[in-house]
């Protein structure tokens, strides 16, 4: 049951992360912050979901990670890879098509 649900959510979360990381090298905390800010506090990704997702994307080769410094402390910065950039574009199209389809269904079914 858990896996069925996460398929949808995971795909969405991946897309969001890719989008945020596309801006430039960014650490995990900042990714969460940005998602929250941009979504007006709607999307609050807990670390327990965020970090596995980041590492999964990195393992797939869509993200590159590098240790760097933030406010005098060591942080792990993520960056979109060329492959990740391509993927982001594809995912975006898929998502938009899906969103249109869903809203179409929701509107028409009334």
């Amino acid at each position, binding site marked *: 049951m858990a896996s069925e649900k996460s398929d949808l959510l995971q795909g969405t979360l991946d897309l969001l992360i890719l989008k945020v990381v596309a801006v430039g090298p960014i650490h995990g905390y900042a990714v969460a912050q940005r998602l929250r800010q941009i979504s007006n506090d709607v999307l609050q990704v807990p670390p327990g979901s965020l*970090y596995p997702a980041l590492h999964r994307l990195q393992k797939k080769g869509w993200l590159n990670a590098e240790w760097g410094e933030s406010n005098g402390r060591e942080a792990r910065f993520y960056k979109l890879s060329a492959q990740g950039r391509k993927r982001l574009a594809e995912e975006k199209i898929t998502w938009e098509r899906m969103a249109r389809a869903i809203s179409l269904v929701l509107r028409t079914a009334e």
Partner: protein
Amino acid sequence: MDWVKRLFRLREQEKEFDRELEFHLEELFQENLAKGLAAEEAMRRAKLELGGREQIKDELHDLYRIPLIETFLRNLKLSGRLIRRSPGVSAAIVFTLMIGTGANIAVFSAVDTILVRPLPFPQSDQLVLLLQHSTEGGNPQTLVAPVRLEDWNRMSSAFQAIAGYYVEDTSETSGPLPEKLTRAFVTKRFLQVMGVSPTAGRDFTAEEQRFGGPNAILISDRLWRQRFSAAPQAIGQSLHFGKSSAAIVGVMPASFQFPDESVDIWSAVPADAPYAQNRTSTWYTAIGRLKPAVKVGQGVADIALVQSRLGRQFPASDEKLNVEVQPLKETTVGSSRRSLWMLFGAVTLLLVIACANIAAVLLARGTERQHEIAVRYSLGASQRAIVGQLLTEVLVLASLGAAAGLGIAALVVRWLRTFPSGLPRANEIAVDWRMLVYAIVCALTATIVCGLLPAWRTARYEIAHSLAAGGKAHVSSGNPMQWALVTVQVALAVTLLLGAALLLRSFYELGRVNAGFDVRHVLAFRVDGSYAETTDMKRLQQRINRTLETLRSLPGVKGAATSSGLPGVPSQFPTEVSVAGSDKGVLQPILANSRFVSSGYFSTMQIPMLAGAECGDTIENKYALVNQSFVSRFFGTAGPIGRQIRMAGGLQTPLSAEIRGVVADAREQGINVSPSPTVYWCVNAPSPTPNYLVRTAGDPAAMAGTVRQVMRTIEPSRSVYEIRPLNEHLSDAFSETRMRTVLLSLFGLIAISLACVGVYGTLVYLVNSRRREIGLRLALGAQRERIAGSFLAQGLRVCAIGCVAGVMLALSFTRLLSGMLYGVPPNDPTTIAAVVVLVTIVGTLAATLPAVRAAKTDPMQVLREG
């Protein structure tokens, strides 16, 4: 090898995860501080927000881990713990496998080195011996004349080159005492054929291989080290051989031991010497190197064609010759092939027995571990995971066993190299990476063979399930699989024991055989001489007679004689002889063994005279004696004494003599060979180095010093060698027979011990698991004898089935032993009965202890235990 890197990165990654999460926590904390919270509260909330840190780390870990390897490592850890928990059983398993694999690895390395690996010469599969046979007189092998060797080289097309050699013992006289050295005389092209060059110095020059050219020698690595301490200055120095001397031009590599390992010196023999031009002379054993990609069969055809052309060209000397081509490897190792494969078969059976033994133990232990396994199932372990865990455990034990076995094998190999095993190439056997690879293969095979069945059985879900529910087994009828394994052990042990018993019987029969001569109290030795002495046969014979007379005059010496071969050491010299006036086939050539003996031979060897007289001290070679078999085969009532006998064929100078006497049959051609018609030619010097035989009053070995001393006074320039009691020479001749007998007996004993442990262990297990039932039965009035009897019967039934199966298996394998048995048929009922009785006795003993223990069960105690 990506996973290896990843494996090593796991620990590092763990730290990285921590750092990353730490940063996140710190940021949350700072944010909370910025909101104006107190430090403590800020931290509390930050931690809350971060969530289960360990859980996140675990999740991250799952992303990166390599399932197979990690599971294996975890299993390994767990195995170590379980092995330590039952040290007794684990040690027993490791020990059993150590014996099983140790014997197997050792014999493997012998088989691999001796039979599988090429000889230590470059492209050694191209090397063949060219054995010249005379088509007359029983096809004896004869040596090749130097001119013919040159003809072969010139006319053949399949060979790169053909060279010849012969070996002679010689005395090197540079030092105060003569030293015996073994010298190989070789023709030109010798090193070319062997494909070896000197490690220091050079090959012979053309000048040195020409008649009248400088004398040059190559020396062995061993002589170079012993005599010259491996100094490079050795080259250019000279060795002295009586009146002649020769300069050292090169040192051969240590690995080059051809024609045999005893050779110290190689000398070139000029092909153009005037005395080397006779086509009937017999000098060389010929060795050839086939051209690349030429098959042995083509070489056979080629040399046959060449020889038939020579036969037409020189009918007198070459027509009745043919040439056999034998791969050098076959000549070298062919005789040991059967023994080695037989032993390899034996150790393989032994390993199977060891594995069956361990499998039975594991099955029993598996039943005891049902509870643990049930718990693991209920915690969600899959059947695969459980089998994997059980197999890992076996793998650990098998690896330990094989490692210990490798150690044992290394010791055995060292022993094999020094022990006079009669094995060719034994000095090449060494501990090497092939043994290691084989040991690993052994460990893996043993894991699968011993472990798979018990692991699968143990991990069977239903059993685990039902037992978890039931808690305790009330009655287990004894695992039939376990008994099957024990039966296999007994059967295979019986097979091995039967083979060993047959070899032992043969050996015993060999020792019991009436040789027809007395081997005790005889000292045998040789005094070196040179073929150069054969130019003056009279002087050579006088020298030998003088030596014999001196020996006979020694106190404690009852007789002395020379003989062409050591009596009892296998050798055959079949020759064609014809007897004038024999009533069966007058002057027909007949085939008989020839031996050359001096006066006093028959009294020294205590071979009874039946008629006539012994050889006298004459040096005219005009007498001969024959044995009883000869008389009964070729003569009727008319006695042979006084007739003329002639030897034809093979030898260049026909020998003619008057039959002077008849002696009883003796097994001089080998203790294991029935006496055959034999002619004893009264010739004290068939070669410059005949065997001296001295009959002593006391211990022959004690006489060796006296003999050396007296030889030093009468022949100061000659060395005395191979001086040992005759029975030691005989026992050397049978060292391969003895080795395989000893080894197979050892394997048989180990096998039956393992099988008994199997019977014992399985019964102990059975008694233990049925304690409650036994207690109940006793409480209900069962008789103790009947309880003991039922267990004993179970053990004996296994022994009986094992015996029948083992004997049947052995009978179908008797072909393996053919040619190794003497005086006992391979299906000898007495031997079979003896083995069956032995196995029954030890099997009963093994079964009695647990049976008695079962009968001694205290019902009250068992019932109290619940």
